[in-house]
């Protein structure tokens, strides 16, 4: 178990004119929940596809669960949910799932047993209706996503790779997904997922890697990444009508280096040498009712903005989930 789940060493991939991934090296420890963060077009999907040998890197090497990723049998230990999801529309749900399981080397008998238990667990088999016998295109979008998710996990993979798993999920399915990720971790599995939703990543991930323009910006355990930056941030939550006065205070560059205005919540980065006590005094003086004032480590969101730049955010490439 000493081998990491994934080791990527100096991998580069060029497409016609662009460098999608540039000299990327990563170590993803076993048994962890790992977030691959970055704006769209950063190279997350390309990196994931290279891990799965869907795309061949130009240079560099990748090992999965201690084996070279090209080795026969490796792919059967990995489960993959691509960003663009889809199934054979005209096929029966059970047959699609059996096909996906058999591709991973599961026998038809084992597959059928697991399919039934998953279908029941996710509510696709009820007393009125067995959706397993329906054709895929008779299912609602949400049900299809569940089926696809079952297909990813049917062969009980040691490593689960989810590309933008939260995109297009309604809150209930998103919660179910989070639960399953935690459950997988509890079973000792490794889960890698890519996202541009920093809040999700901050809550779920043990470790993260932020990439932009195909390069690694930073990586490590979430707590370590945050501690490196020190507790120079303040979480401020207010009620009351004094927004104008508050904004004036937050524009005081002697106190505040930067403030992320989320209307009723602010994440504030203190200016060098500024005293939090002084800031609190000023805020109270505006007449705002302070509900929370706390020294915190910067959020992943703030770190992301710092390191990748605000341009990505303005283009809608980052946000809160």
């Amino acid at each position, binding site marked *: 178990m000493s081998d990491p789940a994934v080791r990527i060493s100096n991998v580069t991939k060029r497409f016609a004119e662009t460098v999608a991934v540039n000299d990327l090296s990563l170590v993803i420890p076993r048994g962890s929940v790992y977030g691959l963060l970055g704006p769209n077009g950063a190279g997350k999907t390309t990196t994931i596809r290279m891990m799965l040998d869907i*795309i061949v890197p130009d240079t560099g090497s990748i090992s999965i669960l201690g084996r070279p990723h090209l080795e026969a049998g490796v792919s059967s230990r990995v489960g993959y949910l691509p960003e*663009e999801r*889809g199934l054979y529309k005209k096929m029966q749900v059970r047959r699609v799932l059996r096909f996906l399981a058999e591709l991973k080397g599961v026998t038809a008998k084992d597959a059928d047993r697991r399919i039934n238990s998953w279908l029941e667990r996710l509510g696709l088999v009820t007393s009125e209706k067995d959706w397993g016998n329906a054709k895929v295109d008779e299912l609602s979008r949400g049900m299809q996503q569940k089926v696809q998710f079952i297909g990813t996990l049917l062969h009980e993979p040691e490593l689960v790779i989810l590309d933008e798993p939260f995109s297009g999920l309604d809150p209930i399915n998103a919660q179910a997904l989070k639960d399953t990720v935690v459950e997988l971790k509890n079973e000792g599995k490794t889960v890698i997922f890519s996202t541009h939703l920093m809040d999700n990543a901050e809550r779920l991930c043990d470790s993260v890697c932020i990439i932009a323009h195909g390069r690694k910006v930073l990586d490590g355990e979430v707590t370590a990444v945050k501690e490196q930056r020190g507790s120079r941030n303040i979480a401020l939550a207010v009620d009351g009508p004094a927004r104008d006065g508050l904004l004036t205070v937050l524009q005081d560059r002697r106190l505040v280096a930067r403030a992320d205005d989320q209307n009723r919540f602010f994440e504030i980065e203190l200016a060098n040498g500024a005293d939090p006590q002084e800031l609190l005094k000023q805020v109270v003086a505006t007449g705002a009712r302070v509900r929370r004032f706390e020294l915190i480590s910067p959020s992943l969101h703030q770190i992301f903005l710092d390191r990748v730049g605000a341009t990505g955010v303005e283009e809608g490439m980052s946000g809160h989930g």
Partner: protein
Amino acid sequence: MGKVFVVFKREFLERVRSRWFLFTTILGPVFMGLVTVLPIAIAAKTKSSQQLSNVVIIDATSTDLGSRVSRALTSTTPNAPVPRVRVVKAEEVPAEEQRATQEVVANQALGYLVLDANTTAGKDLRYAGRNATALIDVESIERMVRQSLLSQRLEHEGIDPGRVASLTNVRLDTKTEKITDRGREGTGGLASFFFGYGIAFVLYIMIAIYGQSILRGVLEEKTSRVAEVVISSVKPDALLAGKILGAGTVALTQVTAWLGMSFLMYQARGPLFQLFGAAPTAAAALKIPTVAPLVGLALFLFFVLGFLLYAALFGAVGSMVSNQEDVQQAATPVMLLLVASFIFMQPILLNPSGTLAKTMSWLPFSAPLMMPLRMAIIAIKWYEIVGALLSVAIGCWLAIWVSARIYRVGLLMYGKRPSFRELARWIRMA
């Protein structure tokens, strides 16, 4: 390869389970049976027109030829009106023709026949009428005039009319038989012609239908985005191989079912023919040409290799496009190869040992259709067959190699259809 088999199994089962497969498997032989029986049944009923003698005979020969022809015509169609014989002078013929034309227009006669000095000289006769395009009618009239002229001449030479009748009563029916290097092949001249045509036609249909269905299958995997999940588990080459083998096996299953059902229908041909009103003798005359085991093997190989070649190409085309609208254009080059082979079947049937026939039975893309066709109608040297098989095998290998490379890249490419230059880059980069 376990994964190829998993893909193969899915392709095979999903296709065989479809209603379309059941439908075509059952209806195919029924259709083919009708195609075989109906022409014979129709031919049995096709005799020369019942109104053949309802004509005007314009006789400008100054002999009794007109009445002789009239008698002959009357005896063939006794229920029709007797021919109206008009003995005229040569210069009156145009006027008589005009009059006869009006009678035909007014439906008082079927047509008119002009006998003149040229006819007695044995050169020509003229016929005009509503049935002038019915070859069988014209042929009957011609035969009767010829016979009448002949007996007239013989009687002129002083031979007894009774003897003339028996001497000129010649009815010949040609029984054809084919000779090949192995010697006489029996009376199946026409049968082997149809057999060769049948094999080539079935192969053409199978490639066209199943090739395009592979194309649609690949496109469906692309548009439904299931392709990415699948190729995270199985290499594109294995996926393509499984798909082609699966569809190919379905095609073979279907052909086998067709052959089996055709055989049963052949066994029951007597009652079937009677059902359609054809003479039982016609049923007896219908013979399936025997196929030597080695020839059978060669035919099977042509079928399999030809199918693989086109199936691989269609698979590559499917991976090149991202939407239904582009399919037609992208598939055109492959379809052209196939259709060209089909179009040339007609000229090659007429001249199976010509240069065109030889060339096309050596080119990989047309050999699977042309060689079986030629093998059925003429004798081909064994080394020509082996050579053509080799050529198809090499073409097949090349097609699979190129297709696999296009497929590998194309499967995850979305957007506009690649140009030929881009395709070349895909093939190099895969």
